[in-house]
């Protein structure tokens, strides 16, 4: 009893000086529309809480991490293996990053589908778009600080993309890398970006974002038919909060608190169970036996870069992001009024579905990388026995050529081998002997020409083997005109003999 009294006295003494209690009380108890005290409205606060976790774990990692190209990888090993629970803090930071991007994206989808970007919350949305961009910037720069092979070659990919900017490309690459090559200066500047510059921007944007949510009020639950009009909206919103409002604290905040705790716990469980991300091999560019791959949320981009035709790549890389970001920024101005409910906005719902399916598909493809040759299939994946059974000596010699010349790296047989080119299990049904010879020697359709690498005997053997690749009971493709020509010759021959 005496303790509570003295705490109260200290509180009063403090508030007589800082004079913030009334403002804080007014802020947290501001009325919000009753229906917004919903589980759909918890993602923004959860993203903020994960950001706080990232700040704390980031500072903890900075106690040990050495931002030097020569030392960074070793300091990560020390964090993983020598510092008590260093691996757990790295796990929290890495999983926190993934959760943060995921929650920011979910928050964005929710805000979009609930029409929250419409008048008068246009600027809140625009700052939110900047928050998405700086969050992705944190993810990319963070991936660089995990200074391993993936980080090194990922920087090479970033530099290669940046170099395609017309006129300025070379300049931007040098500025990005801090020199002519990926080296110490590169890591130092990404450290400065990740630890000072981008977090500074993030804190500033988060401040403005939350301030506007407080000043303009949280978006009301969208009802079909309740249309936003600039002339009447603010009055209607105030009537709604007055008539059917509840104080944010404690009526709405408990859901935010429970969800945030659940997210933090999930991050901790992931960190403890799956552990930290990497580092993979040391960032030594002379170790070239590596298949660099970006972190999860950039995988879709990795897949897109494989599928774009060469002629479209530079325009798509340079114009695509500008169009995308401009589209997001202009959205609240083009569609600032009208229906908010997703039930009356089929195109909005379809857009979200389309984007989600596209990103999901590309991400899944990037996990399997069907466009990459499997570098050791020629020596590691034998040809399944059923493709060799009952074959002639020449055909088996062809199978050997198939392995030795590394056809298997790009072409699969019986589900084994690369997926870069088409599977060859039934290639003889698709291509005649002449077509097979032409394809092997001249290549084409994304296949290198092997004319210079195969002797005539090797080509003959290889094609003989490929001609056996057809399902039992289905005859191989053949050139009808050739049969006629051969038949004609056969028909003529007896005549000449007579």
């Amino acid at each position, binding site marked *: 009893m005496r303790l509570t009294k003295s705490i109260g006295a200290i509180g009063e003494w403090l508030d007589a000086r800082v004079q913030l209690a009334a403002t804080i009380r007014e802020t947290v108890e501001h009325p919000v529309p009753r229906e917004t005290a919903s589980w759909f409205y918890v993602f923004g606060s959860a993203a903020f809480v994960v950001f706080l976790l990232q700040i704390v774990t980031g500072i903890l990692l900075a106690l040990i991490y050495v931002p030097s190209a020569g030392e960074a990888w070793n300091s990560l090993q020390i964090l993983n293996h020598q510092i008590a629970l260093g691996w757990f803090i790295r796990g929290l930071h890495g999983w926190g990053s993934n959760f943060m991007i995921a929650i920011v994206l979910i928050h964005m989808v929710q805000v979009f589908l609930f029409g929250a970007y419409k008048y008068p919350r246009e600027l809140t949305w625009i700052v939110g778009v900047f928050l998405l961009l700086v969050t992705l910037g944190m993810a990319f720069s963070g991936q660089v600080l995990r200074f391993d092979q993936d980080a090194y070659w990922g920087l090479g990919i970033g530099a290669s993309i940046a170099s395609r900017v017309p006129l300025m*490309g*070379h300049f931007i690459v040098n500025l990005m890398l801090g020199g002519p090559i990926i080296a110490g200066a590169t890591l130092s500047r990404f450290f400065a970006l990740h630890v000072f510059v981008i977090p500074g921007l993030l804190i500033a944007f988060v401040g403005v974002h939350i301030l506007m949510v407080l000043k303009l009020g949280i978006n009301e639950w969208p009802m079909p038919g309740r249309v936003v009009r600039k002339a009447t909206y603010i009055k209607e919103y105030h009537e709604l909060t007055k008539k059917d409002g509840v104080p944010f604290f404690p009526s709405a905040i408990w859901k935010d608190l429970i969800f945030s705790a659940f997210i933090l716990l999930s991050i901790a469980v992931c960190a403890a169970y799956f552990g930290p991300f990497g580092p993979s091999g040391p960032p030594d560019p002379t170790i070239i036996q590596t298949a660099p791959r970006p972190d999860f949320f950039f995988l879709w981009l990795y897949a897109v870069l494989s599928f774009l035709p060469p002629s479209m790549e530079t325009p798509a890389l340079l114009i695509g992001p500008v169009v995308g970001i401009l589209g997001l920024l202009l959205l609240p101005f083009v569609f600032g009024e009208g229906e908010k409910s997703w039930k009356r906005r089929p195109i909005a719902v379809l857009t979200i579905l389309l984007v989600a399916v596209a990103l999901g598909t590309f991400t899944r493809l990037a996990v399997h990388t069907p466009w990459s040759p499997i570098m050791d299939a020629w020596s590691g994946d034998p040809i399944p026995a059923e493709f060799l059974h009952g074959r002639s000596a020449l055909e088996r010699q062809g199978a050997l050529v198939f392995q030795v010349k590394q056809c298997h790296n790009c072409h699969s047989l019986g589900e084994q081998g690369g997926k870069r080119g088409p599977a060859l299990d039934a290639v003889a049904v698709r291509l005649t002997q002449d077509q097979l010879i032409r394809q092997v020697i001249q290549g084409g359709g994304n296949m290198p020409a092997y004319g210079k690498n195969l002797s005539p005997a090797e080509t003959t053997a290889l094609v003989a083997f490929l001609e056996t690749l057809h399902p039992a009971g289905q005859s191989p493709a053949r050139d009808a005109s050739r049969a006629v020509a051969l038949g004609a010759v056969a028909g003529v021959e007896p005549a000449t003999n007579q």
Partner: protein
Amino acid sequence: MSLTGGVTRRDLFLKVGIFLNGIVGVILAVPIVRYLLSPVSRERKPGYESWIALGGLEQFPSGETRLATYRNPVADPSDGETADIACWVRNVNGQTFQVFAINCAHLGCPVRWFPQSNLFMCPCHGGAYYQDGSRASGPPERGLFEYEYRIEGGKLLIRAGEMPTPGQASNLVREIRTCV
């Protein structure tokens, strides 16, 4: 206390104060921008692009393609192993050489040489090149980047110092014409 023209002493000092800060801002901005742009301007210093020995010719047998490594001519103590750069050396016929950058001409991943199929293959997006560096298949728009080389005192030297990128292959790396 009002002066002629309606400018008060306080207004004048305010303007002088803002003006002074503007001047000081510009004076500080010039060296700051110069400092920030140092990675770009440093390029013109000598030693940035140099002739570097890859080793004796005996390391590169005729008709074969071998991996070689060198230390980048401009390196800081903090660079560690990142300043060690790899490249592919092809001894065409004992007299002529080709030295290819390790970086794929698509997006800079390290290409690998496969002597069995005489192809360079990239692990990232599936680019492939023939033994002479020309594009064979996949997303690259051009052939591999090639370094200038010369032979001096039984050693193979290349002119290097900058990571080649597709937009700017850098002035020391010749573009190879794609042979069709």
